């Protein structure tokens, strides 16, 4: 994985920037700039606003030797108890981004100010994951501001020196709480230039004075979390600042081509094939004749035999280890795995290219400015050799220069070669090519390439008990999800638990009499569940009627839009997919159909749903197909999406009514 936010993290934890117009410290208390911010009038905020950034100020002072000093001042007013967490801040640093000074204060609504001394700021290793699988030299200084209570103002001043690998900065002006007043200033030495590009915001023109460029914004609204919303980078306003030293190649990126060139240079020689690697390639592919089989063998090796381990040490946040290192250690992060696979593919004569990407679709789009902070992952684009049918490797696009490029993520151990998981489909990534780079749009697979095909042969008895056999065939992310759950299982007897959780969504009472899994580890084949079930009292009696829900197992309706608040952001869907159910339910002896659910046929641009229940002899046959066609539900599609899901939910609850058959009721008296 690329260093997530290496520099952006600093900006994120420190928030913003400052112009140093006011005295730094007042005697025995918070500085004047904080007091000044604390007394400013505020607009009325709603009851979900837990805090407001009263003032943020960031100064990026670039020295002629390329060193940068960042000075950040932030004042936050806590409005509600849930805003107390804004009293805790983590400031990241590493050997290249040293913290020169850090001060923190609280201005209580009443009484004397609090000041936190640097010796009271704990220092700890940066552990973004639950456990310590990340190898990193990034550390954090932790500031825990006292009395971060409603009505009080907390703040800090951070000074940090930074010698960047890339002359680029990102001003993340929009936050999860509103910002009353924000400033960003760039101080450049003579002859240095810059380029500023905004994302998710209209351009802001800076004021200029003697090499000082200053931007200001006020009343920036909060980005409020919504379920299934696009990732942060896809919605929050930010400015990417590219710094251009005079006559130097070491500058930020004005274009994708320039960013691609930087990465191309950074990875030069990393994919060299050593004798050991060559021997392994031979061992893996010698018995294989076709290029496709060779590619599959090498990809499988990277997926299964090279362990993922995130490593971020200095430039190693961006630069992969040499292929020889990855091969000899059998571990590496995303870019390392891509590097070794690329080397191995080259050894069998197949070209491939790095693709630098964000693992969350929606963070980058065609209008995103080139900046390394936008990305957090690396995969490969593999040039598909002639003679391989399109259908064999569907996750490809046709590049005007390189022809068919297959996108493949060797870090993803569960998605088979030739496919992409949903997060990466229809995503944008930077293709790194020998003479530069370009932003490319990754393919979206047809719905039929992923999903669940569930069939069942079932029988109902007069007491409403349902027995029978189910078979589920899962592909794409649907298969990956279950494989992931199964891989987390640590004892054989627990293998059935993920399946129990799945079925209990639909059946209140059930017992498995048999259950098995197919192709758990062989990701080249669809994942399968087969299970036999007894569901007591599945059909409900009502008088002399039996009520049977023919969609016995499976639910796809989403209630995401069933809420009072109007939707603010588009909905991101996991992956394109096709889900189908075909169930045969033999009627109990002595019963016949009295009423059947009406068929449903609905077809939208984003999804379609077709469902039908019919009587075939003494069997109820239920058939439905739900197809996800579009990965982003736009704002103007929300109402249609809501209606669509209500119809699906209604159909999933729809019920057939059985009644005693005329013959079973016996002769009537006349």
């Amino acid at each position, binding site marked *: 994985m690329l260093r997530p936010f290496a520099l952006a993290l600093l900006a994120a934890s420190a928030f913003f920037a400052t112009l140093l117009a006011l005295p730094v410290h007042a005697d025995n208390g918070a500085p004047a700039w904080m007091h000044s911010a604390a007394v400013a009038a505020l607009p009325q905020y709603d*009851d979900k606003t837990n805090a407001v950034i009263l003032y943020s100020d960031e100064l990026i002072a670039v020295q002629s030797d390329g060193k940068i000093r960042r000075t950040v001042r932030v004042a936050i007013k806590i409005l509600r108890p849930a805003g107390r967490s804004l009293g805790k801040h983590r400031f990241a640093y590493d050997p290249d981004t040293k913290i020169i000074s850090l001060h923190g204060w609280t201005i209580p609504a009443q009484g004397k100010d609090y000041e936190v001394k640097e010796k009271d700021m704990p220092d700890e290793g940066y552990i973004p994951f639950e*456990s*310590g699988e990340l190898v990193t030299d990034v550390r954090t200084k932790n500031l825990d501001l006292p009395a971060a209570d409603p009505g009080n103002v907390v703040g800090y001043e951070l000074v940090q020196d930074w010698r960047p690998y890339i002359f680029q900065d990102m001003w993340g002006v929009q936050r999860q709480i509103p910002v009353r007043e924000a400033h960003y200033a760039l101080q450049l030495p003579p002859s240095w230039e810059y380029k500023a590009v905004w994302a998710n915001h209209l351009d802001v023109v800076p004021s200029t004075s003697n090499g000082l460029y200053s931007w200001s914004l006020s009343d920036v609204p909060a980005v409020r979390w919504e379920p299934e919303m696009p990732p942060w980078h896809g919605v929050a306003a930010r400015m990417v600042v590219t710094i251009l030293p005079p006559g130097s190649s070491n500058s930020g990126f004005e274009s994708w081509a320039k960013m691609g060139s930087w990465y191309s240079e950074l990875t030069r020689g990393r994919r060299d094939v050593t004798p050991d690697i060559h021997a392994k390639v031979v061992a893996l592919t010698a018995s294989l004749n076709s290029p496709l089989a060779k590619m599959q063998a090498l990809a499988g090796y990277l997926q299964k035999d090279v362990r993922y381990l995130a490593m971020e040490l200095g430039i190693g946040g961006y630069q992969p280890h040499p292929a020889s290192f990855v091969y000899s250690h059998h571990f590496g992060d995303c870019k390392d795995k891509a590097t070794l696979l690329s080397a191995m593919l080259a050894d069998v004569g197949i070209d491939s290219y790095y693709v630098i990407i964000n693992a969350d679709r929606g963070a980058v789009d065609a209008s995103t400015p080139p900046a390394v902070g936008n990305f957090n992952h690396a995969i490969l684009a593999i040039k598909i050799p002639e003679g391989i049918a399109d259908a064999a490797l569907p996750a490809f696009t046709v590049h005007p220069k390189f022809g068919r490029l297959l996108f493949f993520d060797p870090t993803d151990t569960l998605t088979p070669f030739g496919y992409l998981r949903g997060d990466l489909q229809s995503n944008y990534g930077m293709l790194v090519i020998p003479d530069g780079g370009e932003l490319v749009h990754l393919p979206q697979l047809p719905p039929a390439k992923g999903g669940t095909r569930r069939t069942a042969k079932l029988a109902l008895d007069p007491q409403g008990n349902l027995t029978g056999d189910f078979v589920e065939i899962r592909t794409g992310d649907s298969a990956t999800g279950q494989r992931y759950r199964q891989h987390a299982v640590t004892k054989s*007897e627990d293998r059935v638990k993920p399946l129990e959780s799945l079925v209990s969504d639909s059946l209140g009472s059930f017992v498995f009499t048999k259950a098995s899994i197919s192709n758990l580890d062989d990701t080249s084949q669809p994942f399968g569940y087969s299970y036999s079930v007894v569901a007591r009292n599945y059909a*409900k009696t009502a008088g002399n009627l039996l009520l049977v829900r023919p969609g016995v197992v499976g639910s796809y309706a989403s209630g995401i839009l069933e*809420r009072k608040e109007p939707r603010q952001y588009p909905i991101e869907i996991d992956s394109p997919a096709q889900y189908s159910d075909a169930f045969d339910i033999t009627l109990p002896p002595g019963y016949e159909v009295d009423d059947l659910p009406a068929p449903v046929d609905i077809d939208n641009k984003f999804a379609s749903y077709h469902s039908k229940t019919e009587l075939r002899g003494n069997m109820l046959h239920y058939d439905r197909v739900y197809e996800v066609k579009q990965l982003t539900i736009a704002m103007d599609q929300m109402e249609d999406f809501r209606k669509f899901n209500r119809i699906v939910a209604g159909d999933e609850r729809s*019920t057939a009514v059985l009644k005693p058959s005329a013959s079973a009721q016996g002769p009537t008296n006349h």
Partner: protein
Amino acid sequence: MTTLFPLWRKLSRLQQLRRFAFVAALSFAVALAITPALTADDWLPISPEELKMTSEPKAPGAPAIYLYRQVDRSDLSHGGHEHNYIRIKILTEAGRDYANIEIPYRDRMGISSIRARTVRPDGSIVNFDGQVFKTAVQKNRDSKFLAKTFTVPDVQVGSIVEYRFTYDFEDYYIFNSEWIVSAPLFTKKALFTLKPFDRWPMQWNWPAGLPEGATKPVQDEHSSIVRMTAENIPAFQEEEFMPPPNELKYRVNFLYSEDGFENDENKYWKKFGKKQYDRVEAFADKRKAMEEAVATIVSPSDAPEVKLEKIYDRCQKIRNLSYEPRISGEQIKHDKMKLPENSEELWKLGYGAGKDITWLFLGLARAAGFDARPALVASRAEHFFNPKRLDSRELDANLVVVKLNGKDIFCDPGAAFTAYGMLPWVETGARGRLLDKDGGDWIETPLPTSSATRIERKADLHLNDDGSLDGKVTVTYTGLEAQAWRIDEREQDDAARKRSLEDNLKRNIPAASEVELTNSPEWAGSKNPLVAEFDVKISSWLSTAGKRELLPAGFFVNNEKHMFEHSTRTFPVYYRFPFLKTDDIAIALPQGWKVDSDLKPVTQDIKAIAYSFSVASKPGTVTLQRSLRCDIFIVPADKYSVLRAFYQYIRTADDQQVVLLPAAAVAVN
């Protein structure tokens, strides 16, 4: 966007090494020297069987197992240390994550002699020569929690990962420790030794028992080393609704005592009781001040039960620092805040910690003429108390027992939001020591019945022609449920509390709904139930069955949908407290609609837990009534199938549907 799966997440491990219990420091120097059981360059031989093995029959499906674990500890005043040796067999791809090693440690100790290697299935060896990272997990002036991390190379399925290291303790640093015998992975064989510090008596116990393949810890007469071996230790995995994990993990606790141990159980607790009684009396016994205080609370004409309740209520109104956001030492200094040292000071200051408020209540109750005695009980949040362990730290909660009209009344007003006559759940059904000058006696606190803790949901709803439902819902929480809500939300404002109540109701309704709280629940105090009133809208409640419409009978049942869905169980089921849930739902039908078919009442009563459901209809209205009563807090694992069957029965009953005929269908009929 929902992440399909966290690709890089994995379980934390080596929790067995996180054993930093009660700490005691030595104030004098003693030098001892012993030979460690393992020297720095020892690697134990690996058998061909270990290399070849592909699975462990006693741990089928395990991603990895410990082939061997060894802990050799020496509590020396100089050169105290602990050698650790771990050998892991990787059995599946997921098991390769165990090649990422994390060794936690803390202040006053270091880690040295880290060695690691990978042994490939063919027996070839790759020594670890990479970087070890030092990660500070927590650090400030007073304490820090550090970890050393590294990753072992070339780990494949079938490999053996082997590493060892030594904890080095600061001189004179001796502390209570424990062997955590249970681990997240199955352990084939383990060896534990402890060379105790020889100037302090030490005792040990194994509160959760020992695994089948373990020998009891035995101390060697000559070397004084305590030693235990164990084989085939099952992996410890947590389950929903399980008792406190600490209670279930195999472990051996070692306790030092500067003053020596009293091995006679009765004498131990008497001695402890006397000491604690003196401490409590020193805090609470401020007779004159208490008499003056109590005169401002009660009236001489009040009946005794009224007096006691008034004192209790008054104590609950005192600012309780134990339920406020943590106040840092900086804040105390900055605000010149004084902490009360006795009941008189607490009364004057008007604030104090929860336990001190309870002792204030003791003083006030006595001043009002009650026979009131202090008690220490073992809360059941983390452990189940066993007096035979002779570990007084387990008596970690305090309360007051008052004689009133010949009955014992258990009071803990320092537990915020706890109604008079109730105790917080951790103190219910708990064993403890009723203190007196002679050391006191054992008591057991009452376990309230289900009727004391209720969730009553009453709904008055209208069904509309389009299948939507709207109306009013009132939810009343009493007893421990009300207390839990008030504690959870105590630091929030009304807006956040409103959202919490609304979200909770939405989670209970098995359909997408819009919910709006319409009243102002009483969040302060504990006397009254917590009552929340809502407007509720459900856009689509009915299901269609041709000409008929079906009305789901289960309304507030979503939380029980997945309870005990798994067919197997390792540990007992543990409810925190008995409870009763009742639902009374009236649904007015649209004009012209009628009930086509009623449902029969359903009852399932297995004594400790019972369920009933009934439907009544009259023209234009359907009324659903449901009750779920639970009067048990622990169900043994061998009775799990009965409990699971009970919940399956509930779900089947909740899945019933009332058949309705819409007006158009009624007209046709």
